[in-house]
Structures are given as structure tokens and as C-alpha cells.
């Protein structure tokens, strides 16, 4: 019963907005290439369904690869940097510079370096660049977040650096790493889409390519369907990260 009262307002609003949209399209007699009504988008989604699903899988795969890559590099670098304050001072400005540089601006360069035959590699690399910072920053903050009194306890009993890392710092870092992963997951999808837009050649058949192609043919309903797929993709990735987090943090 309670769930129903909680779910009613958001669903109600969504239905209201969709109905308003549909009504406006019909009453104002808008051309379908300018703004198709929700019903037309639904039809387009069904018609282009297999194509969109295949493309969503490509984008999803590239985003996951980018996340793994960013996690390995960011985590490894955070671990190395956490060993000495000077190392952190050296690396942090570079990491911040990497974060504030717009990925669109770097994309053409990375495409050249990856080779035009390997646009998929460039997309993964660019998405990884965007996902890198929250993972690096989160893991580094986490590694340094251990309770100072627990650190003292490890001093008191003469713990080795490896014991300290394994028994204290990595477990302390886990919640921060998962929060970083949650942010990075969203960014990886954005990075993959932006990179694919820039490559724009159809060498990668992800969702961004479907959007470009549909746009070129003025199939507006299919474009909206593609955007919807991207939203769903982000939500799925977010949920997967959430499930992983809950599994690892069973305390």
C-alpha cells in the first residue's frame, strides 16, 4: 500500500507530461520531423528496436571497458601516490588538468593516434579519460581516510606496510571507491557518446552513431528513441554499480 502511494506521484506526473505532449502535437498539427508525438516515438522504438538494442550493447560494452581501464589506471595510480605526500602533490594537478580539459576537444587527436581503423579504441580511451578522475580521486581519498587512531594501533603493533594496506587502508577505501565508480559509470557513457559523435564515421556502431544516422535522415522519432535508450543504459549501469556496492559492503 505504502509503495503505491510513493510511486503514484512520479508516475502520475510522467503520464500527465506525455499526455500533454501528445495532445500538443495533435492540436497544433506539428510536422512529425519537427516533434513527433510519444505514440510515434513508441512506434519508431518498436520498428528500430533490434538496431537500437544492438547499438546499445556496443555502447554499453565500450563504457564498461572504459570503466575497467580507468579503474585499473586510476586505482593503481592512487595506490602509488598514497605512499608519499610529494607524489600526490606531483600528480594531482595533472589529474585535475585531465579532468577539466573538454573531452570533445581532445577527441580528434585521440582518433588520429588510435588510427582511423580503430575508432572503437579511441572511444574506449576517451571514455576512460573522463571516468578516470572520480575513480582516482575517490580511491586516493579513501586510502587516506582510515581512522587515525586505527593507524596508530597498526604503528603500535609494528604492522608491515603490506599488512597496513591490506587490513586497514583498502577496506577503508572501499566505500569511497564505490562512490567514485558510481560517478564514473555515468561519465563513461557520456564520454563514449561524445567520442563516437566526434568520430562520426560509422566505424563504431554505438547509439551515438544511430542518433547521427537518424538525424541525417530526419527520422526524429528514432532519434528520440535513441536518446531514451541512452537514458536507460545509464540507469542500468548505475544499478549494476549499486548492486556491486551493496554486495561488497554487506556489513
Amino acid at each position, binding site marked *: 500500500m505504502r509503495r503505491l502511494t510513493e510511486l503514484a506521484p512520479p508516475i502520475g506526473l510522467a503520464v500527465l507530461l506525455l499526455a500533454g505532449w501528445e495532445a500538443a502535437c495533435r492540436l497544433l498539427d506539428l510536422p512529425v520531423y519537427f516533434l513527433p508525438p510519444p505514440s510515434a516515438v513508441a512506434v519508431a522504438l518498436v520498428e528500430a528496436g533490434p538496431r537500437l538494442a544492438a547499438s546499445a550493447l556496443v555502447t554499453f560494452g565500450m563504457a564498461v571497458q572504459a570503466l575497467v581501464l580507468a579503474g585499473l589506471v586510476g586505482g593503481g595510480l592512487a595506490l602509488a601516490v598514497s605512499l608519499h605526500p610529494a607524489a600526490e602533490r606531483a600528480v594531482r594537478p595533472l589529474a585535475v588538468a585531465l579532468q577539466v580539459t573538454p573531452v570533445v576537444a581532445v577527441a580528434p587527436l585521440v582518433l588520429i593516434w588510435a588510427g582511423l581503423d580503430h575508432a572503437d579504441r579511441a572511444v574506449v580511451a576517451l571514455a576512460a579519460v573522463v571516468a578516470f578522475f572520480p575513480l582516482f580521486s575517490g580511491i586516493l581519498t579513501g586510502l587516506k581516510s582510515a*581512522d587515525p*587512531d*586505527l593507524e*596508530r*594501533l*597498526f*604503528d*603500535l*603493533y*609494528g*604492522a608491515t606496510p603490506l*599488512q597496513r594496506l591490506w*587490513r*586497514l587502508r583498502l*577496506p577503508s577505501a*572501499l566505500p569511497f571507491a564505490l562512490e567514485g565508480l558510481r560517478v564514473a559509470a555515468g561519465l563513461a557513457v557520456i564520454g563514449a557518446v561524445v567520442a563516437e559523435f566526434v568520430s562520426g564515421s560509422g566505424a563504431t556502431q554505438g547509439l551515438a552513431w544511430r542518433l547521427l544516422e537518424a538525424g541525417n535522415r530526419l527520422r526524429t522519432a528514432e532519434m528520440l528513441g535513441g536518446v531514451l535508450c541512452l537514458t536507460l543504459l545509464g540507469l542500468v549501469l548505475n544499478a549494476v554499480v549499486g548492486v556491486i556496492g551493496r554486495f561488497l559492503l554487506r*556489513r
Partner: protein
Amino acid sequence: MADPIAALRGVTVDLVGRAPLGPIDLNVAQGEILALVGASGAGKSTTLRLLAGLQTPSAGDVIRALGVGRTGFVFQSPTLMPWAEAVTNVALPLELAGMARSQARERAALALSAVGLGDRPDARPSQLSGGMAMRAALARALVTAPDLLLLDEPFAALDSVTRRRLIEDLHALWATAQPRPAMVFVTHDVEEAVYLAQRVVVLAAATGRPVADLATPGPLPRPARWRAEPAYRQTVEAIADALEAAMRPEAAP
């Protein structure tokens, strides 16, 4: 008196943004219970960390007749690893010393029983009450059978009933240990200090220098209704006066 198990000799500690602490001279005899009282900022925690060998003095000598792992430390909060069960937390000092996991956990279970937590070895710290978490922290400090046990206002956050019970249990654990560990107990509660310790040292407010050193009357563990004894009340008054005198310089403009 026997050789001290730990001592500070003319120790000073430079602090950022305020006058340095010290010079501090302090002896901790083997097997004695010593309470340190002083105002906030009197360097009580720093003194304890110096005795633990966790802080290096700016000048002077820290003497520790103790091997690695022979010192137990109980902090103001239980400071348990939240991701690990009680028994894993208590086994930590033994495992850090290289003891096999299964043996360390057996010993940890015994230590938990000794502090009255024998039925909760698998509880996570979040599932323990404040008093129980502090008992687990005490078990962790005692699991190595230390020669020196340092306690930094461990019961300050607990209600008075839990607090009294823990002090009685601490006395019982101290009395049954062979050999008895020396204990240094930091508190700002004069009554707690007198009840718990054989000797109470008052630290000056700004410098942390010991300015009074008084023995408490009567046996340990304390007999029933000992708080009603005139000798107890008189000692509390004497130390409260010494503490007030020690705080006076700070009151000046």
C-alpha cells in the same frame, strides 16, 4: 621501587600554534595503576602517546622497557574496524605479530569471554552498544597480555552505570592477570581517577607538567561501598584542589 616499565625524562614536545609541552618527568612502575588528570589541552593524550612510543619527543628521553606488541592502547572511542566482526578485531594484534589466523581467533575468543562478550564473537561493531564496543576494544588491548596498558579517557562517552561496571571489570582483569600489567588511565574525572588508580598524577593546564602526585588509600579492587568512605572523599577533595591550582594560570587574562 622496581625499575619503571616506562618513563619520561625531561621530555618536551613542540606544538604548532601554542607553547610547547613539558618538560615532563613521569615514572610508570611495573604492575601499578596510575591515573593522569588534567584540564583539556593539558597534554594528557600526548603523554600517553609518548609512553606508547607513538610520538617522538622534541627533547628528552622516553624509556620503554617493552618489546614490540607488549603495549596495549584503548582510545577515547572503541576504534574498531567497522567492516570486521568483533573476534576479527580482537585477533588483529596477534595476526599483525604473525600468529596463524585460527590460533589468533581462538585466543581472541578467550579475550572476548574475559570481558563478558563471549556470546557475541561474530557481531559487527555497528551491532554492539557503546559499552560492548568498548569491552571489545579492551579485549583487543589485552589479547597480547601486555605489560603496559594505556587508556585514553575510554569510558568518557558511556553512561555512569556502564562506566562503573567497566571500572570494576578492569580491576578484576588487572588483579587476575599474571603478571599484572601496568596501567595508565587518562581522565578528567577526579572521582573516577581516585576510584580506579593507586596513584593520581595531576598535570598543569598549559605545560602538561606533573604538578601533584598523590597515592590513593585502600585496596584494589575496591571493596563494596568504598565510595562512601571518608578516606575516598578526602582524596577526591585533595586532588580536586590540586587540579584547580593547576588550572589557575590559564584563568589569568
